């Protein structure tokens, strides 16, 4: 049984179909990369998985249990499915420690001390221990994004969704963020990442899905998708990326 089983889902914004009968499975401890042109539905797909967007058709199962549709406790679902955004979305009025401990205290009902202990352990693990008392605006983009990842990890999620987390970063800061993702992959964290970092997707993922017009156009191992894509649009997309020297 797949860990996440997305069956034939569709999502429209008004008349605009964003996701169109899309199916996808993610196994436990797998890293799945979603690639594809902008507007192909990568972000929307991730946001549907943790219920930030309601789907119009189809169903999503986690551990065999249906987590889409009316009546689902999305707050409970989101406890176990973490997401990290392109724009970090840290809370600017809280220190780093405040950002990381808010949800564990308010949602998981941990004591403040226990939440802070957990937060400090995570921050230390990712080289951010000395930033615990800083406010987000005083950190570099790379540091902010690492804090955002730690904030999601502090909920001890079963799966982490990463939505183009390096797209807003200066090139030299990308590697410090990807370093964390690599570490998490080695530890067996289940992850779904929408990304434009093709080299990284190739290195870290077990499966790559090429999204096009809101559906999975082609999927396979990174070697196959990047080495021998069989479908025309996949090839065209990858060669345009190659022309831009981004592989």
């Amino acid at each position, binding site marked *: 049984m797949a860990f996440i089983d997305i069956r034939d889902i569709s999502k429209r914004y008004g008349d605009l179909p964003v996701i169109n009968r899309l199916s996808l499975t993610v196994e436990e401890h797998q890293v799945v990369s979603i690639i594809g042109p902008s507007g192909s539905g990568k972000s929307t797909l991730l946001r549907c998985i*943790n219920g*930030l967007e309601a789907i119009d058709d189809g169903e999503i199962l986690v551990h065999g249990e249906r987590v889409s549709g009316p009546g689902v406790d*999305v*707050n*409970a679902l*989101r*406890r176990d499915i*973490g*997401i990290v*955004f392109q*724009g970090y*979305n*840290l*809370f*600017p*009025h809280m220190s780093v420690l405040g950002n990381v401990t*808010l*949800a564990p205290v*308010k*949602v998981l009902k941990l004591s403040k001390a226990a939440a802070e202990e957990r937060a400090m352990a995570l921050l230390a693990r990712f080289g951010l221990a000395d930033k615990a008392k800083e*406010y987000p*605006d*005083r950190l570099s983009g790379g540091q902010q994004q690492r804090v955002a990842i730690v*904030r*999601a990890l502090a*909920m001890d999620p079963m799966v982490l969704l990463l939505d183009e987390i390096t797209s807003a970063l200066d090139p030299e800061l990308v590697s410090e963020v990807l370093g964390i993702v690599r570490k998490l992959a080695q530890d067996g964290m289940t992850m779904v990442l929408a990304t434009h970092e093709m080299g990284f997707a190739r290195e870290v993922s077990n499966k790559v899905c090429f999204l096009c017009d809101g559906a999975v156009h082609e999927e396979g191992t990174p070697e196959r998708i990047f080495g021998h894509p069989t479908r025309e649009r996949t090839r065209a997309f990858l060669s345009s990326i190659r022309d831009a020297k981004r592989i």
Partner: protein
Amino acid sequence: MAEIFDSAPVRRLNIGGMPAAPTALFLTALVLAAAILAASLYTIEILRAALLQNGFAGWWVFGLSALLAIASFLIALPLARAFAGWRDARHAVKRNDMVAPRAARAQAQARCWIALGAVFAQFVVVLLAQFLLANNQAVARTFFFVPLMADTFPLVLKAFWINVEIFTVTEILVLVWGLVVALAMLAPGAAGRPLRLIASTYVDIFRAVPAVLMIYLVGFGVPLTGVPLFKDMSLVTFVIVALTLTVGAYTAEIYRAGILSIHWSQAAAARSLGLTHMQALRHVIVPQAVRQMIPPLLNEFIALQKDTALVSVVGVIDAFNQSMLIATNHYNLSAATSVALLFILISIPQSHLLERMMQRDRARLRAR
């Protein structure tokens, strides 16, 4: 492309020729300064005469006049600097290079304008003094009759305490009530629709009705209805309720605008961590919104503080009402001036204090 640029005629940058010293500007400043000095001395002489006529005699009248006369001459300082600048500019022009005269002229012009600014400020002061002294000091006597102000001040201050009481209680109530209404206006989903409708109808109605009318309706109307519990409340309670209802509608709009000004991605981040709608508002959105709301809230509060003077329509003896009684008895408005001064006195420190608090908060959150 290259040949297009090659074939083009040579263009030279043209930013003006040799500068000249700003003689006309300096002469203008000189003439106006001389005029204002004469006007100042004339006004001081009238003031001295008025003081002597009113029985204020002694050395301090002479001292005050002398001090004011010396102060009037201070206009010579910026004028002297303007003159020095003008002279430097003239010398620099004679040396026949471009850069130094340009800088000298710029400095001379700036100094001339500073002198003109000082002249204007002094002109305003002289005008005000002339107004107060006009018609045999009638203006000063009507609005600033010091003996009456001193005599009635304890009475006015005591009545002003009622204003303070009303606006302090109202401000606290309004902060809570406005938030409640704003949250109702933002209630999510289909279930929230009736709440949203009620809240926005309330805001529409109570923003439209003049505050003074609301005070009148509640303050006179509710006791007439004879509804138990309500009819026995004090008049001050009624006006507090009336003001809370009116100002609460404005405050709710300030809260709502503040909450909506926080980017939706903050709500997305909070909800994605499993926080509920209310938790996200309470811990993430509202604390950030409050920072946006503080300046308009202060505006609203200062407006409210002044609006407490409206309670006189239902007969509450507040500072304004008290000053009107004094004005009727003495045929003089000076007590009302005291009230105005009291309102000014409480409003200025609030804005300064708040500005400092916000600066501190910004320094804490923002990158250095």
